[in-house]
Each structure stands twice: as structure tokens, then as C-alpha cells.
């Protein structure tokens, strides 16, 4: 005898394809176009097959298609393991399953694999938007499960399936919340993610090459978010300090070598303003840096400050990280290490001769120290220098080319040219990379700093003043700024003015409120849902007073909470039991329920006479009563006369009196 796999109803098949498409869509979107053809073709074939009643392809074709999928994955990822290749392969195989889809068994398998892939989607994107999409997918998957197991021929439609699926998930929600809040959180991931899980993150890099990028990547991705406990400092002091670049070959700028860091001493400084306290949620950038406002004061215990005031930690940051810090936005450095000053004067002998000649000419004219700095800034301001995000490519002596020929560039060009000029003129200088400014969120009262806010500026060492920040990009004359909207922030005071200018337009204001609200919601999601780690859990449990009994108490509370939720849902379900509209049917079902409790349930397709006969043969003592009730019911419900009220009442009384 062959295995009987019940076929899937037509509505069930429609639902299956819909939820399947929802599940694999994000994976298909990440595939290269030639690979995404495969699942799209299979799904298209399936639609045609359903319409035209085609047959399933023979085994060797199925094997070939699966082989194609594996080859495609290997061509693209050079492996079938790891996050990218593994999930893509799974998504492909899930769609391939349509090629041998016959009955309920296959459908159930596909649905459960679908749930798994939904969890896999979170490896890529944990944002609120993607969370919402995946939640909708889970609702669709659950509705499909409902449709698959619903008897065809019932009066149910798609809305009903959605309703049941949604209700099921809503009933599970309190338990999920309880588990989320109370289940012990472990620091670090439970399992190690494949290595490729963190690739493709953008952020600052460890070096900088001038002129090699002809267009600044304008990524809207959030780099980090900051909530200030003190008033937000003015925009011209919002310099977020990242890697400091010292060494150059005339074109490429790099950080100090590890041993050089150990040789240098951290200079003393004196704060000139009260400390600013703030809390940062840093997006993972796969780099060992924390971002802090210039100049970092107190820091989280695991962080270290290098002699050039960069904040580092020991491990790469691959997950979102929250920390608190204080900074002094105005300060004065006392002295500097002589070795540092030496490195701050290094220039390659042959590179950029014209720039060096210019600086030497200025020095022979008697311009030195602070005056030299001013003269360089004047040069940028008065000569036709342009700020653009799409500068021409530079080759050879890039700084010479920029200063004397193209005169178009962005922060990297200006800072590199400025630092070269300073060093040639005998003023120690270095490039600081990081972020500048940030977008205040008026709804959530915090600052969002994006990758597009990445910036590079310079620091020069002046006798008596120590290291001083100079932002040569800000010296570009405002009327020579292309694509002005963003650059306003670079020119110091413009940051505040930007907001007031926008406020004039009602439409713009509404738009900004909307984006700010979304930002705030997203921030809350990040801070409270994604950022709910061991520390926050500890904090919450302490506040709730649950830790008094230790973890055992927490677990007890967790499980009794779940039991309570289940109890409430069960009571609610009993309360909400659908009441059939027909009063006769209601009496009949009441009667059947009484018998069901005695172990004689009625099959859904069993008519009143058959049922009564079966009960009578199983329980002869009940026979006459049961027969009488069934007779009366069938006569009232199916009989021609139309039921009169008296007969109905008699039936109701009989059912009430009936106690098997």
C-alpha cells in the first residue's frame, strides 16, 4: 500500500506560494541577477503548473535543477557554507521543493523550513522595518498552516485563515515578551556566527589615500547615536574623534605603528569647559574603535586612550555597543612628546615639491607658527578652491595637483594639503579622521551621526598652545560649495542656522517631524529591543526586585508568568467559544458535548440518527433517551413543519436534563 499523502486544498496552495514568496524575497534580492533567475523561474513554472494542471518534472530534471542551484551558489560564494552561501542555498532549495510538491507532507515541510529562513533573515538585518516585514511573513506562514489543515468545503476564506493565524501569534506574544525579558541573557552570542557575517560594514578606515576616490560614498547608514545628559554642544564643537593619521608617502596617510604608540606619552591637557556627559549607541563597524567627542575625558573601563587621543577597545566591534563617556569640548594641551613632534614633521623627500616650495617661501617671508596656519587658511578661502563631493581623480604628486591645479575636493583633500603645507613650513601637524556634527532628532532628543558625516580635519602643534584643531575644509568660501545642503555643517556656525532655515517651510517641517519620529522609533527599537543585553536585563530585574531570590526566582517568575498567560488565554478561549446562530443546533451541540465528555464524541460528519444509533449500541442504558433527543432534533431541524416554540423548549429541557 502506498503512503497516503492528502492533497492540499486550492486555497492552501495559494497561501503556500504567497508565504513562500514572502520568505525567499529578501534572499532573492541579495542574489546576483543571474542566480535569482533560478528561483523566479521555478516559481513562475509552479504558477503555470497550477493553472494548466501540468505534471511534476521527472527525477533527473529535479536533480539537474538542484545541481544548477548548488553550482550557482559555489560560483557566487566559492563555498556552500557560511552565512551568505548557506542561507542562499537554503532559500534556493526551498523554492526547488515546488518541483516535487505533491501533498500536505511537502507543504508542511516547506512551511517549517520557511520559519527557519525567517530566523535566518535576522542574520542580515535587525532593523525595525525588516522586523515588521518578517513579522508579516510569519503571520502569512501561520495562516498557511491554518489553511493547510482546514477541511475544504467549510465556509472559510482567506480572511478567516489570516485571522486565525494572527490570533495564534497574538496569543503567543505575551509569552514571547516574558521570555524576552526574563530568560537569562548571556554575554556574547550563544553560538558563533560564520566569519562572513560582519563583512560589508562601512565606516572609517585605518588609512586614507588622497585622490583615489572620485566620489564620496554618500551612505545614509547610521554610524552611531548619542544622547546627551548635558546640553548639546554647538555644532562647531561636535568633532567625533576617530583614527589619527601621521605617516604619509605623499599620497597615502596611515596611523602610527604599534611600537610607536608605546614609545609616545600621552600629553597633559587642561579642560576649559565643563565636562559633557553623553551615552553612545555605536553601530558595528568591525573595527576596534569607540567614537568619543573631542577631547575624551572619562570612558568606559574597557576602553583605552592612545597618546593621540583615539579611544580603542581590545576586540573588534561586531555588535551594537552602548557606552557612556564624558568629553571636554574646549581644552588646552600642555606639552607634547618630542618624538611626536618629530613624526609630525615628517614628509617624503621627493613628493609634492611645489607645495613644499610654497611653504618654504612663506617661511623665508617670515611667516611662522600661527601666522603660517592663518596664511594657509587664507589661501584656501581666497583662492578659487571648491568643495565638491565629486572631485577629479589625482595622480602623481596629488597634493601639488590639488593645491595648484584642480582645487576641487572634499575634507580629505583639504586636510591632507593643509597638513603637508604645515609640515613643510615647520609646524608639526597630523590628520584626524572621525565624524563631524550629527543630526538632532527633535522627537527623541538625541543626535544621529551617519556615515555621510564622516570627516577629516587637522591638528597642528603650536608653541605654548599644544595640539590645536584646525578644520581647513571649513575655510572654503561658502559661495564655492557645491551641493551645499550637507556642507553647511562643515562651516562651523552654519549648523545651527540650518535648522532655522528649514523651519520656515511648513511642508519641510512636517517632513522632518516625520523622519525624526521614525528615527526616534528606530532608536528606541535599537536601544530597548536590540540593545537589551545582560546589563540591561540585570538593571531591569533589580528594579523589579526579582534578583532578591537569585536566578532561581527569576526562572520561577518566568514559568509562572507563562502559566498565567496560558491560563488567561484558555479562559478567554472558553469564553469566546463561537456560538452557532441556530438555537436548535446549539442545543444539539450541547447534547453532543455532554456525550463527548463521557467518551462518545460525535464525528463532525456524523448525522443525528447515526450518532444516536452508535451511542445506543455503546451505552444501551442511554439508548432510549438518546434516540428520543436525536429524533426530536432531526425532526425539528430538518422536518417540514418548521419548529414551533413548544417543541424547541421540550428539546432544550430534555438536553438540560440529560446527564450521561
Amino acid at each position, binding site marked *: 500500500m502506498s503512503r497516503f499523502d492528502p*492533497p492540499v486544498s486550492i486555497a492552501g496552495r495559494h497561501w503556500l506560494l504567497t508565504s513562500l514568496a514572502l520568505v525567499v524575497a529578501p534572499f532573492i534580492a541579495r542574489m546576483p541577477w543571474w542566480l535569482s533567475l533560478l528561483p523566479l523561474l521555478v516559481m513562475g513554472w509552479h504558477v503555470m503548473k497550477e493553472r494548466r494542471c501540468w505534471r511534476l518534472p521527472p527525477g533527473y530534471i529535479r536533480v539537474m535543477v538542484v545541481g544548477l542551484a548548488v553550482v550557482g551558489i559555489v560560483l557566487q560564494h566559492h563555498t556552500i557554507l557560511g552565512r551568505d552561501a548557506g542561507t542562499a542555498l537554503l532559500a534556493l532549495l526551498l523554492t526547488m521543493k515546488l518541483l516535487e510538491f505533491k501533498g500536505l507532507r511537502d507543504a508542511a515541510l516547506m512551511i517549517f523550513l520557511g520559519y527557519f529562513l525567517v530566523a535566518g533573515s535576522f542574520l542580515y538585518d535587525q532593523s525595525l522595518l525588516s522586523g515588521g516585514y518578517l513579522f508579516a511573513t510569519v503571520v502569512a506562514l501561520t495562516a498557511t498552516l491554518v489553511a493547510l489543515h482546514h477541511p475544504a468545503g467549510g465556509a472559510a476564506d482567506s480572511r478567516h485563515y489570516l485571522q486565525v493565524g494572527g490570533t495564534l501569534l497574538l496569543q503567543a506574544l505575551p509569552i514571547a515578551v516574558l521570555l524576552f525579558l526574563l530568560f537569562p541573557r548571556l554575554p556574547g552570542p550563544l553560538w558563533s556566527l560564520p566569519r562572513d557575517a560582519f563583512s560589508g560594514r562601512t565606516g572609517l578606515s585605518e588609512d586614507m589615500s588622497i585622490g583615489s576616490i572620485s566620489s564620496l560614498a554618500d551612505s545614509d547608514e547610521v554610524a552611531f547615536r548619542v544622547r546627551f545628559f548635558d546640553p548639546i554642544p554647538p555644532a562647531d564643537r561636535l568633532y567625533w574623534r576617530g583614527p589619527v593619521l601621521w605617516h604619509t608617502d605623499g599620497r597615502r596617510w596611515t596611523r602610527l605603528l604599534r611600537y610607536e604608540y608605546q614609545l609616545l606619552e600621552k600629553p597633559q591637557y587642561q579642560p576649559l569647559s565643563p565636562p559633557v556627559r553623553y551615552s553612545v549607541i555605536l553601530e558595528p563597524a568591525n573595527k576596534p574603535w569607540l567614537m568619543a567627542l573631542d577631547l575624551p575625558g572619562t570612558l568606559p573601563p574597557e576602553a583605552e586612550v592612545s597618546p593621540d587621543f583615539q579611544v580603542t577597545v581590545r576586540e573588534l566591534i561586531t555588535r551594537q555597543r552602548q557606552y557612556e563617556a564624558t568629553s571636554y569640548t574646549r581644552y588646552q594641551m600642555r606639552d607634547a612628546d618630542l618624538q611626536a613632534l618629530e613624526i609630525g614633521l615628517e614628509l617624503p623627500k621627493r613628493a609634492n615639491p611645489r607645495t613644499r616650495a610654497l611653504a618654504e617661501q612663506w617661511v623665508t617671508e617670515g611667516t611662522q607658527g600661527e601666522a603660517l596656519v592663518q596664511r594657509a587658511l587664507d589661501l584656501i578661502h581666497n583662492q578659487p578652491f571648491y568643495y565638491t563631493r565629486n572631485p577629479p581623480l589625482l595622480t602623481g604628486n596629488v597634493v601639488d595637483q590639488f593645491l595648484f591645479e584642480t582645487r576641487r575636493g572634499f575634507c580629505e583633500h583639504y586636510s591632507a594639503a593643509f597638513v603637508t603645507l604645515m609640515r613643510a613650513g615647520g609646524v608639526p601637524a597630523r590628520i584626524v579622521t572621525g565624524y563631524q556634527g550629527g543630526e538632532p532628532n527633535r522627537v527623541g532628543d538625541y543626535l544621529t551621526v551617519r556615515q555621510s558625516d564622516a570627516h577629516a580635519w587637522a591638528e597642528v602643534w603650536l608653541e605654548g598652545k599644544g595640539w590645536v584643531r584646525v578644520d581647513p575644509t571649513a575655510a572654503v568660501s561658502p559661495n564655492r560649495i557645491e551641493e551645499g545642503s550637507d556642507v553647511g555643517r562643515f562651516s562651523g556656525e552654519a549648523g545651527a542656522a540650518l535648522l532655522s532655515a528649514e523651519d520656515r517651510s511648513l511642508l519641510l517641517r512636517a517632513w522632518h517631524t516625520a523622519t525624526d519620529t521614525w528615527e526616534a522609533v528606530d532608536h528606541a527599537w535599537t536601544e530597548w529591543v536590540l540593545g537589551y543585553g545582560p546589563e540591561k536585563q540585570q538593571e531591569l530585574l533589580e528594579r523589579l526586585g526579582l534578583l532578591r531570590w537569585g536566578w532561581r526566582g527569576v526562572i520561577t517568575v518566568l514559568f509562572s508568568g507563562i502559566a498565567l498567560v496560558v491560563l488567561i488565554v484558555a479562559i478567554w478561549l472558553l469564553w469566546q467559544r463561537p456560538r452557532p446562530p441556530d438555537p436548535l443546533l446549539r442545543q444539539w451541540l450541547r447534547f453532543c458535548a455532554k456525550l463527548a465528555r463521557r467518551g462518545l464524541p460525535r464525528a463532525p*460528519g456524523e448525522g443525528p440518527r447515526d450518532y444516536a444509533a452508535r451511542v445506543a449500541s455503546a451505552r444501551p442504558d442511554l439508548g432510549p433517551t438518546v434516540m428520543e433527543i436525536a429524533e426530536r432534533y432531526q425532526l425539528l431541524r*430538518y*422536518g417540514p413543519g418548521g419548529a414551533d416554540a413548544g417543541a424547541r423548549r421540550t428539546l432544550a429541557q430534555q438536553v438540560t436534563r440529560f446527564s450521561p
Partner: protein
Amino acid sequence: MRPLDRLIAQIDELILGKHTQVRLAVACLLARGHLLIEDLPGVGKTTLAHVLAATLGLRFSRLQFTSDLLPADILGVSIFDREKGAFTFHAGPIFSQVVLADEVNRATPKTQSALLEAMEEHQVSIEGETRPLPEPFFVIATQNPMHQIGTFPLPESQLDRFLMRISLGYPDPAAERALFTGRDRRELLRELGAAMTPEGLAQEQQVAAQVHAADPLIDYLQALIRFSRESGHFHNGLSPRAGLALLAAARAWAHLAGRSHALPEDIQAVLPHVAGHRLQPAQRDQSPADLMVLFREVPIP
């Protein structure tokens, strides 16, 4: 004892141990439908048809279908009468009240369709002249199981013309023993008197058609039809005509039981015989009989 009960009792005396099939056959007759009996040779198909005709006092004719049978052999022909100098019509065996079409699947499709057309229209058109068939008109066709050499299986669209399809099957040992030890059936048949007049039958048919079908019953009928269309078990679902047939058969079944209203049980009793030959399983490895059991899953609203 009602005449109908007497009728069935009388048939039961001759057709031993086939009470349900006899009732189904009578119900089919009451619902003014035609009956298809599918079974092996020698299980009593022909006897059943004979007995039905005899107990109802109806004119009976038998047609043995063969591969060289022509439509004219069924319907009749006009032959030139030299004495009168005109054509006279010699009616074929179809002009009877009960027609036994034996081994209907041995005839060619052309001959089959002549019979089936007459069944549907209750009239015959020959040489431009339409001749009505007698009332009541009841065809009992028998068919050997498929896949025998030299048969032309009835196409699905024509199977639909039969209200019910039943099979008799082997008798149980006790009934078979009674058959061996009892008198000769043919002799008994000859002695058999009519238990009902044709007028009586017409009246019963009319009463059966008026059996009450309440709204909840129609709901159940529709649920069954929807199941056949949407469950994915069948190639095509039941047609509206099949639905009507199901209802008429259920009414006749209820009337046989002496009730003036039909119950879900009535539909369930006739369903396998009314729907069985109208549905094909969607998966080839399932037998139609298995699928009839599936209808039991449809809840009664």
C-alpha cells in the same frame, strides 16, 4: 405495509442478501433516474433488472450489447410495407418501460450514444420524426469492469447520465447457500406478480420529489459539493447537475424510509453511488472508493 415496502420485500425474496443494493435500485427508480450496475458476470445483474420490471408490472425488454450492434437495432427501423404501400415503423426494444442494456460497454460509442441520448431526452428521433418513449422509462445498464478485451468504456460525460452506479458483489455465504438450496430463480420469476401498478409508481415518484429538504440540509449538500471542488482530492468537482442528482436521490431514499423530510444521513447513504462515477481521483494511486470515505470528514453544519 406500504406498497413500497411490499415491493422491496418481494424483490428481496428473489435477490438474496442484497438488501441495500435493492433499496438503492428502487430509490433510483423513484428519483426517475437511470441505473448503472457495474460488476462481474453472474452475480445477478440481469435477475435484478428482471425482478424490478416484473414486480412493478412494467413492460420489459432486454438488449444484449455487442460490438456489431447498430443504433437501429435499439431504436427501431421503418420498413416499406408493400401491402399498404407505405413505410411502417417497427419500434426497437427501447420502446419499453424497463430496458435492460446488458454489457453496455461492449458496443461501439455510436450505439452507446444512441441509447444515452434516448435516456436523457425520453424520446427518440428517427427519420425526422420524434417519438416519445413510454412512461415510466427506466434504463438499467450493466457494465463489466473496465480493462476487459473488446470493450469501449463509457466516457465520463456519459456516465453522468446515470443517476447511480452500484455494484452487487458476491453474496454472503448464507445467502448463497439459500440460493443453492432454494428453488430455481427463473421459475420464481415467472410466478412473480406485480406488487405495484405503473400508476402507483408514478404517484410514489411524485411524492418522493416533494420530500422536504430543509435549509440546513441544503447547506450540507453545498458543503459536500464545495469539498469535492476545493479539497484537491479530485480532478474536477461535482457539477450542479450532480448536485441535483444527489438531492433527488437523497429525497427518494428518505421517502423509502417513510420520512417526509430528508436527513444528512440520506445524503450520506446515496453519496458514494451518486458521486462515485462522476469523480476522478487527482492522484492516480487512489481508488474512487477510498475517496468516498473522505466525504465523511465534511462537517454537518
